[in-house]
């Protein structure tokens, strides 16, 4: 019988992160799945000088950028969709504290795919011809930039295309709906780029909204897109993507999305946010108190909750999932 990989959040951050690392979060959806609570713990443990690999900006990157913990970032999209611009990230970029390298939403997962496959480069048929190819925040002195997405010739047709640099982040913290204690995971909603990210990263830690018995994985093996053999640790943390949403589990906390983004627009607001919502809890129970138990109940009443129905019989009680 393989060992359980259940671990507390503070221990996972202490063991698998360090200053200056290349840190990726999944799914890195701007209002949906993302390992946001992992980012809060990165701040609690005062990690610095992070190089963030985020398919899209999320409230996590917004927060890590606002506090100055991230100095380099690579993204396909840097807003919060209908919630607007990401004020914390925006402030960090505009002030020059953070170098943001732009790609597109297809380029980022293709680069993860290239990293996962060990390819030297990925053929680029998008992003070429635009300033995404010609301008680089990491290499600003070269116009037009020839290192970021260099031109290459398709050996079959002679067409000039581009070459994407593959990504192999040091760590991927991946938010999933359901995990078993061994590290098998089921994601409800779009998986976005979590499949590629889980194979591209040097190490993977899962942050699961709920823990299920392995029998669940045996019932739905086609849905297990992240298998245990590539996972280092499993953290159980309800409302892990809060204030963003998680299909089948909880809706977006619209009020907190707005409050958080407004707070991150200024240094003083960011300090207050960190005090109240990064250092404002000790454990899962006080985290849920911080969100508000009534809010948790309301958000759990999501119209998507039927998506969880086939899996409910395998849900493990919280006492059984403490690391």
């Amino acid at each position, binding site marked *: 019988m393989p060992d359980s990989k259940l671990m507390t959040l503070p221990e996972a951050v202490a063991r698998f992160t360090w200053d200056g690392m290349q840190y990726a979060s999944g799914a890195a959806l701007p209002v949906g799945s993302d390992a946001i609570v992992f980012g809060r713990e990165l701040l609690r443990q005062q990690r610095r000088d992070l190089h963030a690999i985020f398919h899209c900006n999320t409230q996590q990157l917004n927060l890590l950028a606002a506090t100055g913990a991230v100095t380099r970032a690579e993204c396909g999209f840097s807003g919060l969709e209908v919630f607007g611009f990401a004020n914390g*990230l925006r402030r960090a970029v505009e002030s020059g504290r953070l170098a943001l390298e732009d790609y597109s939403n*297809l380029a980022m*997962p293709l680069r993860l795919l290239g990293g996962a496959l060990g390819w030297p480069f990925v053929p680029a048929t998008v992003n070429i011809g635009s300033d995404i190819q010609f*301008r680089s925040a990491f290499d600003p002195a070269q116009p037009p930039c020839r290192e970021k997405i260099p031109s290459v010739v398709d050996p079959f047709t002679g067409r000039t295309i581009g070459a994407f640099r593959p990504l192999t982040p040091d760590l991927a913290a991946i938010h999933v709906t359901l995990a078993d204690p061994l590290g098998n995971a089921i994601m409800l909603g779009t*998986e976005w780029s979590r499949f590629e990210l889980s194979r591209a990263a040097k190490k993977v830690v899962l942050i699961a909204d709920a823990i299920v018995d392995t029998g669940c994985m045996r019932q739905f093996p086609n849905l297990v897109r992240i298998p245990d053999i590539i996972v280092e640790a499993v953290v159980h943390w309800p409302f892990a993507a809060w204030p963003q949403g998680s299909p089948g589990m909880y809706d977006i906390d619209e009020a907190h999305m707005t409050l958080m983004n407004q707070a991150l627009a200024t240094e003083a607001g960011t300090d207050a946010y960190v005090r109240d919502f990064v250092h404002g809890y000790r454990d899962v129970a006080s985290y849920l108190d911080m969100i508000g138990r009534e809010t948790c109940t309301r958000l759990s009443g999501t119209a998507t909750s039927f998506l969880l129905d086939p899996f409910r019989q395998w849900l493990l009680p919280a006492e059984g999932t403490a690391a």
Partner: protein
Amino acid sequence: MSAQDYTRQEMMAIATGREIRDGELAIFGVGLAMLAGYFAQAHHAPRVRAMTEGGVYGATPVGGLPWGIECNRISTNATSFTNAIDALGYLVASGRCDVGIIGAAQVDRFGNVNTTGIWDGPIGETYRPPKTRLTGAGGANDIACGAKRTLIMVAHEPKRFVDKVTYISSPGYLEGSDARARYGFPGGGPAAIITTLGILRPLPDTREFALDSWFAFSSIAEIKANTGWALEVSPDARVAPEPTDAELAALRRVDETGALRKKN
């Protein structure tokens, strides 16, 4: 239907939706683009094969304007969830997708789109942070490269309609004429820029955008005054039909929370 009965944003969404034909494979961006696309599905294109770049298929929004391409409001009645490489790669960058709708902070005379940042003047030789950082390209660059037709939705204001965008986030016709051919994109480029005042389409040779139609509440003069280049007017330019009762009813069913009715 008189001009007082609908907003400019509603007219823009309806005019955009009219560009979508039944049965097409279509990808909708977030926000207004999604409302325009699902309006088309609710009104005249029931068999449109719609997806979001999140890889969410078969869904119609529930409970109001979705907050994003992945949000629960679009996950409630989906028939398939896949991933980004699937939606933006297999179905869009490959050249299979018929039509995509994107937004813009700035658009220029050749339909190039900037959603990355606003600089105080030209960027210059050395790249530098923008004065105002925007959202970046997202999936719009992939749609602009791969979709057979791209529709650009943008509020018609002088600061948005510029002679040349400072930064090309998503390619239109680049420097015009056949400049796109250098890159061999499978997509045909922007078919129309649909604004809060009218519709612009590319001229056949230069690919410069010219005025195709104006809305009942606007005029050629108002559109020219809000466009940052010497806008040509097509010889057959005309007023676009006003929304029908059926169109407005369909749009408002999709726009349940009235996002398009708030601003005018």
